[in-house]
């Protein structure tokens, strides 16, 4: 390789460059065929590898096997803690203390017998609790069972659920159910997250509700607020459409903000040659880039029939569905959002996120898109 920017190219691919560096490298990429080929080939190779290894890891079903063996296991006391079964080694349980300890137990038992029967103890709120599902319509179901209209269902995280909406989902520690699901989806809920398996659903997050993360086959979709549709499965690939509000996607190529009204496709394990398409990021103001260069595509284009589309996915009229192509595009400071992307949707309702930037993943925006 005659170009000496190989290391920067990999950092660019990994989303490890700052916005200025990324924008600057993206400009370089437009004119350097060596770097373009390097980025494309590395992307392709690693993507294919990830698809197979992820499949391999999940086919081993470690979690199921571990949980089946767990009843035979016992949690050992922490080192240095009082050891009731320690064979008399602990000073607290030495014979010198047996008499006073016995007396204390007798006195306590007598005092308790005088006291009225205690009611249930106060519940200690913890961040990980059951996830509550409430029906918002008569057709709402969980695992095929109808949720009664005036009732809620609480499930523990970590379990695969088949949910038919409309339902409101309340995560632990959240006072109100500001997160809704319409459509049908299979997912594994976790604390503040849904691990998507398959289906086609529209999610809604009310303003000022805590954000929710949906994981899709190695991608993390972070919904700040608004309405967003997700469809597809790990094998087929996913389609994501932010209808309104703000959401971010982090994938192998980095993180970027979704543009409302512009659908994007994430290829599944069945299509290893098609890398995910990440929408163009919003680059911070200090970088003033040149006009957007023409798209530079390398490699074959996957025909539209190459990816499946869930029937229930809704795309706005007139919006063209984007087909995943192995294309590498320049970073530009100007988002290539459609005119429909109103600035008020972007700036006036920022989600409550922490970190150095508005990007909830804490990464600099990465600039690979179609």
């Amino acid at each position, binding site marked *: 390789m005659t170009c000496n920017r190989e290391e920067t190219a990999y950092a660019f691919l990994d989303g490890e460059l700052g916005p200025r560096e990324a924008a600057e490298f993206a400009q370089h990429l437009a004119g350097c065929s060596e770097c373009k080929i390097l980025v494309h080939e590395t992307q392709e190779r690693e993507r294919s590898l990830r698809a197979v290894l992820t499949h391999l*890891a999940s086919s081993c079903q470690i979690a199921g*096997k571990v949980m089946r063996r767990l009843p035979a296991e016992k949690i050992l006391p922490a080192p240095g803690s009082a050891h009731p079964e320690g064979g008399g080694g602990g000073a607290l349980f030495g014979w010198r203390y047996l008499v006073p300890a016995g007396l204390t137990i007798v006195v306590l038992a007598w005092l308790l017998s005088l006291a009225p029967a205690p009611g249930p103890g106060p519940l200690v709120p913890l961040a990980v609790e059951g996830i509550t599902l409430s029906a918002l319509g008569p057709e709402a179901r969980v695992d095929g069972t109808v949720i009664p209209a005036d009732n809620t269902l609480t499930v523990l995280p970590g379990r695969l659920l088949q949910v038919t909406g409309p339902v409101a989902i309340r995560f632990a520690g959240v006072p109100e159910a500001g997160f809704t699901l319409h459509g049908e989806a299979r997912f594994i809920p*976790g604390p503040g997250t849904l691990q998507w398996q398959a289906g086609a659903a529209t999610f809604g997050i009310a303003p000022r509700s805590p954000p929710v993360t949906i994981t899709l086959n190695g991608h993390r979709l972070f919904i700040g607020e608004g309405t967003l549709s997700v469809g597809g499965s790990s094998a087929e690939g996913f389609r994501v459409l932010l209808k309104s509000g703000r959401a971010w996607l982090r994938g192998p190529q980095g993180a970027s903000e979704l543009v409302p009204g512009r659908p994007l496709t994430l290829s599944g394990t069945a299509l290893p040659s098609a890398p995910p398409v990440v929408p163009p990021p919003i680059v911070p103001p200090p970088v003033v880039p040149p006009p957007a260069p023409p798209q530079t595509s390398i490699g074959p284009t996957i025909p539209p029939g190459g990816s499946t589309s869930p029937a229930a996915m809704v795309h706005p009229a007139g919006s063209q569905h984007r087909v995943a192509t192995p294309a590498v595009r320049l970073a530009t400071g100007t988002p290539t959002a459609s005119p429909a992307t109103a600035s008020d949707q972007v700036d006036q309702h920022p989600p409550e996120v922490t970190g150095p930037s508005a990007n909830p993943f804490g990464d600099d925006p990465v600039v690979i898109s179609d």
Partner: protein
Amino acid sequence: MSDEIRQDGDLIARVLAGDSNLFSVLVGKYERLVFSYLLPQVRNLQEVEDLAQETFLRAYRHLAGFDTSRKFSVWLLAITRNLLVDRFRKNSQATAGQESYQEMLATQGPFPQVGDPQRQVEMQEEFRRTFRNILDLPEDYKVPLMMRIMQDLSYDEIAENLELPLQTVKNRIFKARQMLRAKRKAEHDL
């Protein structure tokens, strides 16, 4: 304290309080991390699976001793590392006769099914070639690269999990990719 540390700490508190089913959330969250750590270092798939299971069971047994102000993933990988060392110490000579990944992948392969048969063959061939080349990389280079590829971890996260300086992780991932590229070029030139 980060959200992740706090969430894991809450989960662990619930497991220690008797809700052992919640341990599955921790296993589900970290099984791929353990897998990506073991996969390039153990050349027998069954053994990877056994070590991964044993890692989580050992973590469960010693959960009461875990300091919840620390990152659970770092502790988990320390357990995995100890198990690996034990395994190498006990049967270092046993690996030669065992079925390697390459053999396993050449015969069955854990490949997701693709509709087009030709595409399926191409994908399998591409995977075998790349994976074989990764296995041939120096030991220190394989794991950071696999964590990057399989887990989509940032360089910072990899450095934290492997308890290595950030620059070392950057260098190793870069060198690993350079070596893979050189191997591919050599294969192509043949």
